[in-house]
């Protein structure tokens, strides 16, 4: 059950896993996630399915070790089994030919963005990906993103790779240069907030994938709730993607600190 068949470090703290989960591999689409539990005392934690392999019956996860649960997961090795993997959860990304799409990903947010980039490209969009991180070593998946992007713009806070600056600088550069029809942003909540503020200024429709605290992931507990357009939504069943301009990011940022 849920055996790890491949493990690879993308950076010191970011690990890519290939996990046996044939049923999930069969039905997942871009935007879906799973809930994972490591050990009998482990928490239920959500991770995006970044891709899958139908023949091998595997799904791919990219996990950034930040706290107890993600680090526990990242310590598992090939041959180990993940105690529980359930999914695919959430709504699949709405994909169509929008025209030109800017995909703004920060840190490990690039991983969940990868399947969306791929699907957008296959649907005929011009895809410009902006990848941002603090420093060179934390830029992940550049090559894979490049495969499905017309252009990849790298931003690092310290200028150690690509352009020096924030993800918003990269996005604004594109906006100033050409017509952008849609922006997709996935990353830390604070980053998505600023991308959203920027694109709102330019009236560019923007979609953010929210990474709230979850428990069941099936709509049962309400831990994942956010305010979107003045209404309470459950990220696990109504999302994870929402119209970024409608999301109350300040409330989300506050709620993310519930257990810190």
């Amino acid at each position: 059950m849920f055996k790890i068949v491949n493990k690879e470090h993308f950076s010191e703290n970011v690990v890519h896993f290939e996990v046996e989960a044939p049923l999930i591999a069969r039905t997942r689409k871009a935007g879906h996630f799973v809930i994972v539990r490591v050990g009998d005392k482990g928490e239920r934690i959500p991770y995006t399915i970044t891709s899958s392999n139908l023949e091998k019956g595997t799904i791919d996860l990219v996990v950034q070790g930040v706290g107890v649960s993600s680090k526990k997961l990242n310590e598992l090795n090939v041959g180990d089994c993940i105690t529980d993997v359930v999914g695919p959860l959430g709504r699949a990304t709405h994909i169509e030919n929008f025209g030109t799409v800017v995909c703004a990903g920060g840190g490990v947010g690039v991983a969940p963005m990868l399947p969306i980039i791929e699907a957008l490209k296959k649907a005929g969009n011009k895809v410009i990906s902006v990848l941002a991180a603090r420093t060179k070593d934390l830029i992940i998946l550049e090559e894979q993103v490049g495969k499905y992007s017309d252009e990849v713009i790298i931003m690092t806070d310290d200028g150690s790779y690509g352009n020096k600056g924030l993800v918003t600088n990269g996005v604004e550069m594109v906006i100033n240069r050409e017509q952008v029809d849609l922006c997709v942003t996935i990353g830390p909540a604070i980053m998505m907030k600023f991308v959203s503020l920027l694109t709102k200024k330019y009236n560019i429709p923007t979609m953010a994938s929210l990474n709230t605290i979850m428990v069941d992931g099936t709509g049962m507990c309400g831990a994942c709730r956010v305010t979107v357009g003045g209404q309470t939504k459950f990220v696990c069943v109504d999302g994870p993607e929402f119209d970024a301009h409608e999301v109350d990011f300040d409330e989300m940022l506050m709620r993310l600190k519930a257990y810190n």
Partner: protein
Amino acid sequence: MATLQEIIKARHGEPWREQLRRSMKAKERGERPRVKMPELAPDYRSHSLNEEVNLGLSEEQAVYEAKRCLDCANPTCMSGCPVEINIPTFIKYIEVGDFLKAAQTLKETSALPAVCGRVCPQEKQCEAQCIHVKMKKEAVAIGYLERFAADYERITNNISIPQNTKSNKIKIAVVGSGPAGLSFAGDMAKKGYDVTVFEALHEIGGVLKYGIPEFRLPNEIVDVEINVLQKMGVKFEKDCIVGKTISHEDLQQAGFKGLFVASGAGLPNFMNIPGENLIGVMSSNEFLTRVNLMDAASDDSDTPVQHGKKVAVIGGGNTAMDAVRTARRIGAERAIIVYRRSENEMPARLEEVKHAKEEGIEFLTLHNPLKYEGDETGHVKRMLLQKMELGEPDASGRRSPVPIEGATEWIDIDEVIVSVGVSPNPLIPHTFSGLEVSKRGTIVVNNDTMQSALNDVYAGGDIVRGGATVILAMGDGRKAAAEMDKALQAK
């Protein structure tokens, strides 16, 4: 086949029963005071999360209580039980000391007597209809006796694994492992079907595991039942969400000839008032799931839970009582029930209200929250309550709460648990095309057969009724099993 009335009459007329009735005067039986359930002391148990409050009757107490039952020729108590357990028969077996026969009698109609004996709202069901009540005396303690007999069977290791009739190799799928799903699975396995139960969570048992706390229903009791089902050949697939992980069509293609949907009423209601998304405000589902399913109150569990010192629980049902008593047990100094009607209208079991009060829970009835306010970190710190009074009866027949103009009050709290009801889990209604779904989101079934608008799909429990009870869910499972079997055999 004999009707229920004929069975009751025949059993009532058996010589041993007649003899037993004559062994003690009805008057004497009726004059006995009702037995008291031994329980943990309130000041001890209000700090002990997992120890069961009710300790169970001793054999002497059970036999004593059984003698209070008059063995009525027309046992009105039975009409109060949704699955019509043959109450006088099982009680009289207790009176003669044949506790195993008593347990077997329970199992004729109930798949989970050890559970129902503990959690049924007896004072509204069987015990409400006991003849003693009509004579202004206390009802026979049917629930306590039911628990006693079922526990006796388990503790003495006498649970028999029902013999399956010969396997018919017909594959049947069950969606959800709560009481409805478990009872359906048991009955179908007995009839020879090849049954697989699919459960979304990583534990089997539904609300019995993640909702109702151990101090009221120990997990061990649920596990014993699950074990029996496993020994009967029922397969359990955890971490599998029907409609997501596998679809209705997948199941059909895999050869499942019938489906029983028992996916429960999992969706928590909120009140949509200001401040409800502050940190420290959560649904009772979240709070109880963290504590019961994820064991969050233990040091060695990775899952966290708030340990509020001043906790308000909004609502007056069983879930609210479970949440408030759990909060108390994990450290609340003040644990308050806030309920907009009066105590008379509270839907919770009487015993839970009594136990809660003994454990130091405060009851702010005729109060309703208007909004919550947080501190600078977004953590809830106080709530504004509206005082209410009772007006005319509403659609539910209960007197409706009406706000008293201008009467409001702030109360300091650091945790709020919202327990104002649940809605049906929308997952199956959304992903099974062709199902008929009501405005409330419940699956519409034929009440006589539990069959939905889809031929091969039956449904029961909370997904059909909205939030109901364990015994009703279980009864639905049994009925659906009987009807699905009939339909499949007719083919």
